[in-house]
């Protein structure tokens, strides 16, 4: 009896009051969330600032002109050669090879996992792919140098240099493969079941359904995976530093050694550099270039996602 009374009293404890109240927890959380968001933006801006500042010094050097930077094909800042292209072509070549490996195989793996694999096969295969994603890139680098290169030399003969873009690109593709496959698989599995059923009900076979209905419906997600994969390839450093070569070389021939933008930055910054030397500031110009390439690719991926989002809802 006593207890019941207290409950009744408690229920009637608060009189009607519709005035605004302070909710301290709410404001604290809001502030914390804002700070977290702000921090990431701040760091991005800070990176751009530092890159821009040092690159500014580079382009401020009387010997450097944009015409030379973008119009010549030899990079050796120490002796007044400022053509960025040998580094860019190497980055593009290795990245292109990497995508040539990772896109078809990653997509095939994703299609298999989402459309064909039995739950058992899927639960066995996914962890293996994730292990592939967890291998340190330096290990991949030596895998390229010590396994892939000899293999390529065996296949293509002596034309393949010890350091070469093909081997680095292929191994980079293997490294990116799990990223492509897991993102594409997410995109494929999130295609509504109703679409698959609609397709089967039309008398479509499994392969027709997978390739002509599910795949197009997942295209935006797969496009995003592609772009992120490219960004990853462009930014990858260790594999190319170990296996692609240690000197700028203006060529698209994948059998030859050629240093990428990232590989070059890694090598030069490991050496003895004095601040304000042209070598030092040139690194920031390369980094800025890399940053721009990656930024543009990310913007494109964002654009694709926005354009196609929920088109099949």
């Amino acid at each position: 009896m006593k207890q019941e009374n207290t409950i009744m009293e408690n229920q009637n404890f608060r009189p009607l009051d519709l005035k605004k109240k302070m909710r301290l927890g709410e404001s604290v959380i809001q502030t914390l969330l804002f700070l977290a968001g702000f921090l990431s933006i701040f760091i991005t801006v800070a990176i751009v600032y530092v890159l821009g500042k040092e690159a500014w010094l580079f382009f401020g050097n009387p010997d450097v002109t944009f015409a030379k930077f973008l119009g010549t094909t030899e990079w050796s800042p120490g002796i007044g050669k400022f053509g960025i292209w040998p580094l860019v072509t190497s980055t593009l070549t290795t990245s292109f090879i990497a995508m040539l490996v990772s896109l078809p195989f990653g997509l095939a793996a994703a299609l298999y996992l989402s459309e064909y694999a039995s739950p058992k096969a899927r639960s066995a295969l996914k962890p293996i792919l994730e292990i592939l994603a967890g291998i340190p890139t330096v290990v991949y680098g030596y895998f390229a140098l010590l396994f892939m290169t000899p293999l390529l030399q065996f296949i293509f003969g002596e034309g393949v240099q010890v350091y070469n873009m093909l081997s680095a690109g292929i191994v980079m593709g293997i490294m990116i493969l799990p990223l492509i496959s897991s993102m594409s698989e997410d995109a494929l599995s999130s295609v509504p079941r109703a679409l698959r059923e609609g397709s089967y009900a039309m008398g479509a076979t499994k392969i027709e359904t997978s390739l002509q209905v599910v795949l197009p419906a997942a295209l935006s997600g797969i496009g995003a995976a592609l772009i992120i994969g490219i960004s990853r390839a462009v930014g990858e450093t260790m594999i190319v530093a170990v296996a692609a070569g240690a000197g700028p070389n203006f060529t698209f021939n994948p059998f030859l050694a050629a240093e990428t933008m990232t590989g070059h930055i890694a090598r030069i910054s490991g050496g003895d550099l004095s601040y304000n030397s042209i070598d030092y500031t040139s690194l920031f110009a390369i980094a800025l270039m890399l940053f721009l390439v990656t930024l543009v690719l990310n913007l494109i991926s964002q654009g694709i996602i926005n354009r196609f989002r929920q088109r099949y809802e």
Partner: protein
Amino acid sequence: METNEIPQYSIETKDLSIFYGTFKAVSDVNLLIEKQKITAIIGPSGCGKSTLLRAFNRMNDFVPSSYVTGKVLMGGQNMYGANIDPVEVRRKIGMVFQKPNPFPKSIYENIAWGARINGFKGNMDELVEQSLRGAALWEEVKDVLQKSAYELSGGQQQRLCIARTIAIQPDIILMDEPASALDPISTLRIEELMQELKKNYTIIIVTHNMQQAARVSDYTAMMMLEKDGSRSGTVIEFSETKKIFTNPKDKRTEDYVTGRFG
């Protein structure tokens, strides 16, 4: 009954039971679905109406661990027989779903695609127009055929789904609550359309809207859970729609159609 005589029924089930693993979802269904008529399957939620419908074009195949016992005969052939290709079954038995599910393609391609994978070699433009006319959608979309199907309204999308189904010229069209996600006007259009379609097709429709069943169907199958508490659904009464709604034999049917139950 001899099964290889010329069948006057488009689908015939014999002691059809449908299982999900050990769970018997539908038990012992014996139905004769007459050609070029509309047969409605009604009953309370969860009694296996959709499961039964989906057994008619082997859509339950995609549910792991599902299987059937008994027979579903189409043209004298058991569609669950050993040498039957489910893809061929579905080419003859089209399906319209509860929620419109057009493909992420243009309006034109939504229709052309199914015809193409089914080996259609004729004049595609003509087929698309015919199918859209058949689904009473042509006038509304003839100028926007290349637009995405997702730009259509829900009711238009559902008629597009009907159009793509008739484009592959099936014998039977299954409809799983085709109007339940639509507004009343779109619903009315679909019902009118069904009356047109039955001139050429056999239609089986699942609905939980009894007025709809009474309005559109020629025959009605009343489904209900078994009385033994096993959670299996079965057909408790099957006859002309008129009889089901005016003079049901089973007390449970009477209670259901008069709104005293369900």
